[in-house]
């Protein structure tokens, strides 16, 4: 789960990190009032949406207080931001952050992630802030400094200090960088983040300011961070992904026309790859999971059948915990309730396979059963091509 910039900045402020003065607003008039209240010359309007690249997409505007703030605010608030991270459908703008635009003497980077290989929390810092960390890693890897923190010992003051002194020789800045690193570490661990990042962390005179911030939370730990879970902005989620999640399914929207239902994340990914090898294009990733009930399977089927883009449905199940008879009952249930206007190809295998096949056969539904996975995939791709007239 991701937080908005303004939410992330509030958390940073609570932990003692300075951020530019500002207000979050939801309409253009409010934006104007907020801008005037800042009593400063140069202000910035920032679209609040879960995506990087907001600037390039037109979601960030630096203005003089004499400019038509209201008009620009209106424009941004009505945008659907399309960036290289959002996909073509874009993200709505949930709110607008109105901030003073501070003087910028230098831009630093500070971020915290979990090192998957060693299970250590890694704090990264760079004097080359402003660009994203992957770009720095590619273009100037020698400008990234890291500290690995043993999760049992926690971040020691000397580690934060040593990192800070790699970015600056000035004690007044080093202390602030060390404090910001400590704050970011505490946020990362205290709220179970997947990412806590300040980029850029700007030097503005003798003060350090978090000009932009990104805090992403781990969904698997939200149960113990209820105050964070309450910050979820559902308007930023794909509605189908959202309803799938609420049904206990793992669904990701893709750009093709073949609806896929698979059990297990790995097999689901492999199924997409197989469709692609044969020249097809999947409309989604959909893992019904190991413990799916008949109803969950039916929900999954409905999600695929509701998707106007889907031309053909491909069911690929290797029953382990999920029994093939449960799968069959769920699929049949969904179709019986709504009718079927699309071709469905099913390849099922594993636990209770005979019973599952029999249920499909007895249902009288026009579901094409295949025993070879490869042939099934080829068939699905061929049907999709045929139906789209390619």
């Amino acid at each position, binding site marked *: 789960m991701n937080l908005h910039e303004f939410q992330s900045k509030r958390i940073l402020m609570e932990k003692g990190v300075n951020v530019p003065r500002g207000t979050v607003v939801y309409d253009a008039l409010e934006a104007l009032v907020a801008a005037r209240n800042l009593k400063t010359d140069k202000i910035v309007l920032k679209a609040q949406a879960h995506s990087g690249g907001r600037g390039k997409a037109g979601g960030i505007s630096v203005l003089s207080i004499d400019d038509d703030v209201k008009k620009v605010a209106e424009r941004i608030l009505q945008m659907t931001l399309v960036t290289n991270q959002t996909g073509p459908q874009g993200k709505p703008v949930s709110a607008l952050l109105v901030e003073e635009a501070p003087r910028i003497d230098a831009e630093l980077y500070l971020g915290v992630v979990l090192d998957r*290989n060693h299970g250590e929390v890694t704090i990264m810092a760079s004097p080359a802030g402003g660009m994203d960390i992957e770009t720095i890693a590619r273009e100037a890897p020698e400008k990234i400094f890291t500290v690995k923190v043993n999760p049992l010992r926690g971040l020691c003051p000397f580690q934060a200090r040593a990192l800070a002194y790699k970015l600056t020789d000035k004690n007044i800045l080093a202390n602030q960088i060390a404090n910001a690193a400590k704050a970011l570490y505490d946020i990362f661990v205290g709220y179970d983040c997947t990412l806590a990042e300040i980029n850029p962390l700007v030097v503005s005179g003798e003060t350090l300011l978090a000009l932009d911030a990104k805090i992403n939370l781990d969904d698997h730990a939200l149960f113990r961070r209820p105050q964070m879970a309450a910050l979820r902005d559902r308007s930023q989620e794909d509605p189908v992904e959202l309803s799938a999640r609420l049904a206990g399914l793992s669904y990701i929207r893709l750009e093709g026309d073949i609806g896929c239902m698979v059990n297990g994340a790995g097999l689901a990914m492999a199924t997409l790859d197989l469709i692609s090898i044969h020249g097809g294009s999947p409309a989604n990733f959909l893992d019904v999971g190991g413990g799916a009930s008949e109803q969950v399977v039916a929900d999954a089927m409905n999600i695929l059948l509701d998707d106007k883009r889907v031309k053909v449905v491909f069911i690929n199940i290797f029953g382990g915990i999920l029994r093939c008879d449960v799968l069959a009952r769920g699929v049949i249930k969904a179709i019986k309730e709504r009718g079927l206007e699309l071709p469905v190809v099913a390849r099922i295998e594993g636990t209770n396979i005979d019973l599952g096949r029999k249920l499909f056969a007895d249902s009288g539904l026009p579901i094409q059963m295949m025993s070879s996975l490869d042939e099934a995939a080829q068939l699905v791709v061929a049907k999709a091509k045929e139906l789209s007239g390619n």
Partner: protein
Amino acid sequence: MAILVNRESRIICQGITGRNGTFHSLACRDYGSNLVGGVTPGKKGAFVDGIPVFNTVEEAVQETGANVSLIFIPAAHAKDPILEAVDAGIEVIVCITEGIPPLDTASALFTVKEKGRVLVGPNTPGIISPAEKCKVGIMPGYIHSPGPVGVISRSGTLTYEVVDQLTKAGMGQSTCLGLGGDPVVGLSFVDCLRLFRDDPNTEAVVLIGEIGGSAEEQAADFIKAEFQKPVIAYVAGRLAPPGKRMGHAGAIISGGSGTAQGKIKALKDVGVEVVENLTKVGQVVREVLK
């Protein structure tokens, strides 16, 4: 022979009186595994179809000599039983639980490594050594058969798919393991390759990777440096969009790293036979082993 678990393994199940704990403990025993006990605090003295239940792992180990544990404990509380198993002297800990907060896993893992134990998972289907009739996990036992192929995977059903192909193509398995689909897991591809290298009954290894992290790239480095047996690999997720968790918490491409393409290249570069079409894995393994 096999790696990590075998007919000598003395297995307990932590959380044995829960629905999944009971079901899979009995399924493991049915397969032939030596299920010697179970642990559920407060249930000491009970039996699960004849398997004695203890309050603590310490007691279970004292009474049964257990050295392997299978964990079914809800994610919110799963860190504690891992540490309990370590402190009680359990050598191989198989944690089936999915969705443990990664910082919990990371913190438990620190103790696991410090004490020199093995943690398989979390979010793993487990381990199975067919010739040893030993299954410690949730995989369907009947698709496996004894033979010379080691299988290591980050995925559950995808592994079953591959194992099914192998068995149907007449190639049995020495040991099959799931490393787990979480971002932070205990045993790695490299750890497993090291074990398979030293296992005389393993002649080839199938490595099933997926997007996210760099476990496959590290496996490639290890294979180049010190693994002589043939390795056949499959890597899932070439179509995965960046920034999206593909079902597994660990299967996520972040900031351009962890892509299937990168992993496939790394493996090919060290001479691994990378199969692009999942349905051909069995066939390729047969050709390699011929």
